[in-house]
């Protein structure tokens, strides 16, 4: 348990992706099976101990500590697991520290009536950091800023293999992943998961710049609309049906309407959308269905899901990824003809002869479900990752708004000495008859390093108030913010939320009074 607790401790505070990768790879190299595999499962959300709830933990602590002191301590620390881990009275005498594997095995056998005593016994044998790791582990939600994707990249670095190989294996493996680690150590063959509905890493596109078009022969490329949903992989193999997000998260549970329609044996690439009466709906409608573990019948009726298909990776056993795009496209069309899947259709191709013509089509479409166009080389095989050249995305120009900087917060890692997270506002009528600024969004990119240094300097010189790492600034500086779309939000004071906001220009020249009003933003909401 000691190395696992140390890892958690370091990851909790590590602000940089590279730092986390190094910590993880070091842990995988140092810690033997099965502990490292259980740690991997804990980090990727693959462990669940339903017998232990937060209330159990609190109850155990209050049995051992004066309730008044516990109350003051909890108020001070603010987190239950952390408070209990710190306040737990240490048992005098040498306790052998159990391994992570022993902890997992113990807790897997626990039920509601045996869990409290088992947890107490483990807490007695651990130190404060280990107790914290234990409590986070068994009450679910490590929340330490490590995504499943990051853990897989770390595995790949540790084993010196391609991340795509790990992704392909991932959903065919189970904790504690001894076969995976055996292969990464170089002591065992690569695990065989060919026949299952595992995730195959997606092929991604680069933004298409002016220079890319100048260098590219339009006749070698094909174009189709870029639909504004979420990119998914539809994988139905050997009787298994899975829907994966772009990063390989299994989202099948939230989309039973799609999995029900997957009565075939194939792996497909497409865009998940909401489609009602044959019309693709805005991204805001799809958002109602995302990030949910369970889905109600009403949600299924109100926001029916749909997949618009872009590509085919497997037709039955046949791996098509090495074929050219044009060939795969023919196969995809034939496949749809043959299978006639419900809740899915073909993404239509756009005919064009030169870049100017495609640009005209791209900018003139009024369909809010379209984000731009995708441009793909006709001879490109389906390659995992984001190779430069074969695929491009050419988005519609973003919308912009002139806002006023209101708050700035210190960044993390390399940016920890800079005020680099900016909250900006738009004007609205105030109760006293005048106008006031209301925050409409937050952005922490879009500017150059040089602009960041200027913003940092400006924030320091124009601070009006401080709240911990946040500074309020005098309402003077206008920031032009670019964003992809805007929607209603009940979580924000302004009632609106922007998608992908970024600072597009610093308007040193523009007086704050001339910044935009909230109404302008509200008028851009697409529903």
């Amino acid at each position, binding site marked *: 348990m000691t190395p696992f607790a*140390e890892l958690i401790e370091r990851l909790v*505070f590590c602000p940089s992706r590279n*730092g986390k990768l190094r*910590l993880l790879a070091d842990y995988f190299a140092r810690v033997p099976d099965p502990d490292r595999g259980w740690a991997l499962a804990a980090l990727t959300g693959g462990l669940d101990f339903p017998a232990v709830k937060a209330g159990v933990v609190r109850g155990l602590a209050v049995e051992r500590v*004066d309730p*008044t*002191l516990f109350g003051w*301590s909890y108020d001070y620390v603010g987190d239950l697991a952390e408070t209990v881990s*710190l306040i737990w009275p240490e048992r005098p005498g040498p306790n052998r520290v159990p391994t992570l594997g022993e902890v997992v095995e113990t807790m897997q056998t626990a039920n509601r009536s045996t869990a409290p005593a088992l947890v107490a016994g483990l807490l007695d044998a651990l130190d404060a950091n280990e107790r914290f790791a234990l409590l986070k582990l068994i009450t679910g939600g490590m929340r330490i800023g490590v995504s499943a994707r990051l853990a897989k990249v770390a595995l790949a670095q540790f084993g010196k293999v391609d991340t795509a190989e790990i992704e392909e294996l991932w959903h065919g493996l189970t904790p504690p992943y001894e076969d995976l680690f055996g292969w990464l150590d170089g002591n065992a063959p690569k695990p065989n998961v060919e026949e299952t509905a595992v995730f195959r890493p997606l092929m991604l596109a680069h933004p298409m710049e002016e220079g890319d078009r100048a260098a590219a022969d339009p006749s070698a490329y094909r174009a189709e609309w870029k639909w504004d949903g979420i990119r998914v992989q539809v994988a139905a193999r050997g009787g298994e049906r899975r829907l994966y997000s772009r990063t390989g998260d299994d989202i099948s549970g939230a989309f039973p309407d799609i999995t029900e329609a997957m009565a075939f044996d194939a792996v497909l690439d497409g865009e998940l959308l909401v489609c009602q009466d044959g019309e693709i709906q805005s991204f805001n409608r799809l958002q109602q269905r995302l990030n949910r573990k369970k889905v109600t019948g009403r949600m299924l009726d109100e926001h029916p899901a749909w997949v618009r298909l872009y590509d085919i990776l497997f037709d039955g056993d046949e791996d098509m990824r090495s074929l050219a795009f044009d060939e795969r496209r023919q196969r995809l069309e034939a496949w749809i003809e043959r299978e006639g899947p419900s809740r899915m259709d073909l993404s239509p191709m756009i005919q064009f002869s030169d870049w100017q013509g495609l640009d005209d089509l791209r900018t003139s479409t009024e369909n809010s479900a379209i984000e731009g166009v995708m441009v793909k080389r006709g001879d490109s095989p389906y390659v995992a990752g984001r190779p430069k050249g074969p695929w491009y995305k050419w988005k519609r120009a973003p919308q912009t708004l002139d806002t006023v900087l209101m708050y700035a917060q210190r960044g993390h890692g390399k940016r920890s000495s800079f005020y680099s997270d900016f909250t900006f506002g738009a004007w609205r009528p105030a109760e006293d008859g005048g106008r006031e600024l209301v925050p409409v969004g937050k952005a922490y990119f879009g500017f150059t390093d040089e602009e960041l240094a200027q913003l940092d300097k400006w924030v320091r010189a124009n601070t009006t108030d401080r709240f911990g790492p946040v500074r309020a600034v005098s309402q003077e500086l206008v920031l032009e913010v670019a964003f992809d779309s805007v929607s209603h939000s009940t979580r924000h004071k302004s009632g609106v939320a922007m998608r992908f906001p970024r600072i597009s220009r610093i308007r040193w020249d523009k007086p704050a009074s001339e910044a935009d009003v909230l109404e302008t933003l509200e008028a851009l909401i697409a529903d």
Partner: protein
Amino acid sequence: MAQIPPHPASWLRVTDRGLHVVPGDLYVDPARSVDRAVITHGHADHARPGNRAVLATSETLAVMDARYGNDAAKSKQALGYGQSVDIGDVSVRLVPAGHVLGSAQVVLDYRGSRAVVSGDYKRGLDPTCTPFEPVSCDVFITEATFGLPVFRHPHAGDEVAKLLRSVGLFPDRAHLVGVYALGKCQRVIALLRQAGYDRPLYLHGALIALTELYGELGVELGEVRPVADLTKEELKGEIVLAPPSAIADRWSRRLPDPVVCAASGWMRVRQRARQRGVELPMIISDHADWDELLRTIDEVDAPEVWVTHGREEALVHQVTLSGRRAQALSLVGFEEDAAE
């Protein structure tokens, strides 16, 4: 018939200048300048400039001289550990507190009644100062900076080992450790030396004077160098010490992708570490933790405990549960974070 000793409450007073010892007309760690002061140690919220006569250990006087120069005091009297001096009807003795170099508890005897003012103290390992010595008394006047049961400091040696492992794991980055200039800085250096780390340590300018003073007072700290003109390349893989205020600010931009560390008892609470942008918290404190506070109160075995600064209410609560009398003194002027 023997006279009944007077209760310390009858001859010690809390005033807006600090704790007043009435029969000798002297103040312990006064918040404002007074005619006669006893100073427990050199941290700025305990040792303030401008008093007329100051009694303290020679090390504490040296720290005050280094910090305040001519303003330190008009007249200074050094007292060694264990020595006593009579001021009026009160006998004053200084006893090691284990907090920083020269730190002392003040033992006050008046007509058979004894009070001990702990100043700030700790019981953990510190190669740079003399360990705390418990003195039995009628009233023990204690600090309570970490007076909550969530504060239990781990072994300082383990925390330093954590730092050294991280240096091994990230050889292309500097490790920047936030430390207070008096005590923590030198203790961390000494602990690193004890752990076998013999490379030079690099110091922010604000830490140099007091570290040199420790050397002059006989505390061996190995080679230290100013960070001043070194390049990023030269600082890769090195350990740099700086005051807490510098670790997440512009000063740190001169370092190669620093791993920001902080050595403080407050690092026990994750939210505190996060607020300060710390990547590697090191729980190293110069104050007694919860268990040390309780153990010390048991050892001095005073029937009555007064709590000066920190989290008074929790300590008063716990001491009362254990059958002693306890109360919080509302002393002004002490800062929660000042010496951590």
